[in-house]
């Protein structure tokens, strides 16, 4: 399964731990929204390519 982890802010330790567990056995990718000018075009491509997306806080 292709899993995309999107971060809306710097991930806290508990989020990092959850990401490690849910990502185990998956083909994973990540995208950081917590930047001045996110590349939304790229994000949409990644979202549509993934089987599941999790937008962490």
């Amino acid at each position, binding site marked *: 399964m292709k899993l995309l982890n999107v971060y809306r802010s710097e991930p*806290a330790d508990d989020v990092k*731990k*959850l990401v*490690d*567990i*849910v990502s185990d056995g998956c083909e994973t990718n990540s995208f950081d929204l917590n930047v001045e000018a996110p590349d939304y075009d790229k994000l949409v491509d990644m979202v549509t390519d993934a089987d*599941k997306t999790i937008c962490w*806080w």
Partner: protein
Amino acid sequence: MSKKVCFMYPSSEYIFDGVRSALGLAVENMYAYGVVMKNEIDEINDYNKENIEWMRDMEGDVYSIPEGNVEKHGLTKMTLEELGQKLKEMDVIVPYGIMRSTED
């Protein structure tokens, strides 16, 4: 086949509305779960108690990582590791609201 959805509530102001939102999916025939991530809840009013019971009646549940909510309010105990494993079973994962760093 009914979808499985898990909400995670990272700060106190989002818990009970998040339960209401999860219940909204339960009545749409989805399996809906909620998890209190960090906060000890002072009080649960009758309306919110009914929402939690209704979720359980519909084969969902409301879990808590802080143990105080298990002892005081009867929420179902869950560890962070168990939450991670549960998330692997879910079709949809909803990190709800805002993570308040001041509530860590």
